[in-house]
């Protein structure tokens, strides 16, 4: 078993990704593996507890993707952790797709591609940095009942309906907990219909 590294700061992680992109630096890649592989494994196990083979497959896919796409990473657009999350999420959808639990016709990368479009906007980049900071500080302070609902949706891949069923709550309660959490994290900043 690999030792779990001491916490690396997000700036260091960004530099490591840039080294992989520029120099195909295997030493830097190895450090990224040490940091991210155990987290990605935990992400997979959160959805399917006990499914270690699935988790190891996901780790492998995400890390190989990191190697192949490192040159597309732009630290001005997204912090390293958020970029890795999007890789892991897309690989998870791809895994479900290969196993008949998601329609096969569309590559998950194509679904999320247009998010890359606003790269040139420095105002937007600053806003995103602020939000990332706010979310990091704010999540720890959320009441458990709110963070639990977010974890069900993001880590376990549950719909709000499924979350309500598992927690034995009315759907409306789940929705309002999500909204309260988003307000506290300052993500919900405009009115939403439907």
């Amino acid at each position, binding site marked *: *078993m690999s030792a779990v590294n001491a916490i690396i700061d997000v700036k260091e992680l960004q530099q490591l990704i840039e080294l992989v992109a520029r120099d195909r630096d295997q030493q830097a890649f190895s450090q990224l593996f040490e940091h991210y592989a155990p987290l990605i494994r*935990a992400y997979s196990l959160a959805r399917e507890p006990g499914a270690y083979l699935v988790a190891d497959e996901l780790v492998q896919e995400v890390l190989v993707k990191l190697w192949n796409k490192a040159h597309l990473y732009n630290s001005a657009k997204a912090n390293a952790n958020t970029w890795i999350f999007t890789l892991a999420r897309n690989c998870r959808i791809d895994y479900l797709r290969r196993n008949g639990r998601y329609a096969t016709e569309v590559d998950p990368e194509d679904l999320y*591609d247009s998010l890359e479009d606003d790269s040139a906007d420095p105002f937007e980049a600053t806003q995103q940095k602020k*939000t990332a900071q706010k979310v990091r500080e704010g*999540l720890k302070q959320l009441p458990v009942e709110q963070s639990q609902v977010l974890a069900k949706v993001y880590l376990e891949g549950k719909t709000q309906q499924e979350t309500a069923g598992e927690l034995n709550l009315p759907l409306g309660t789940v929705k309002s907990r999500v909204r309260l959490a*988003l307000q506290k994290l300052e*993500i919900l900043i405009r009115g939403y219909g439907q």
Partner: protein
Amino acid sequence: MIQHHPSIDRLIAFSAGSLPLSQSLCISAHIEHCQQCRQDIRRLNHIGSTLIEELPPSPVPDALKQAVMERINQIGPRNSEDTAAPPGSGDVPRCLRSLLPAGLYNIPWKRLSPSIFGAKLCTDVNGSKIEMLKIKAGGQVANHNHTGEEITLVLEGSFSDADGVYRKGDIIFRNCEDKNHRPIASQNADCICLTAVEAPIQFTGFFARLLNPLIRRSHYSS
């Protein structure tokens, strides 16, 4: 200016990756047109990344690291994923480019009525049907109710119903509570939409009701 957006609940599910393909396609095509929702998705993505960072790490077997190092060694200096994917051709949203390789203006339409044309794209694993729909300028879709949810995204032109006017990039959600939904395309241009329909819709007019047995073929007839 886009007026009709997905709810925050759907944006979260999209960001988390837990939305069925049929819905994801419509949301993805919407956000390609909508900067505001793109910003929201990017904000929401920080929740996913922060939650993962705070998970108790699960130790990785040494053999797995070796396997990954071997794989990257075989990849060589640069592989085919070299450049970012090109934008979709013409006005096809990127998420549809594999389904509409010939573009938005060369779709093999099937005539469903004098003013309505449809082209099936695919069926989701949950049974939802994903179709392209063209309503000729001024054309009208027959009065119908929904037994499941119908999502419509305007890609070209515009249409209106009793509740409003919908233009390029607008996304509309309709379900069984929306009675007698009767969209009509604007007079000046054909309207092309992407639609995802959860369960067959039902036509409600006397003559149109005769069409109900036919809608297994397509959700839209006149």
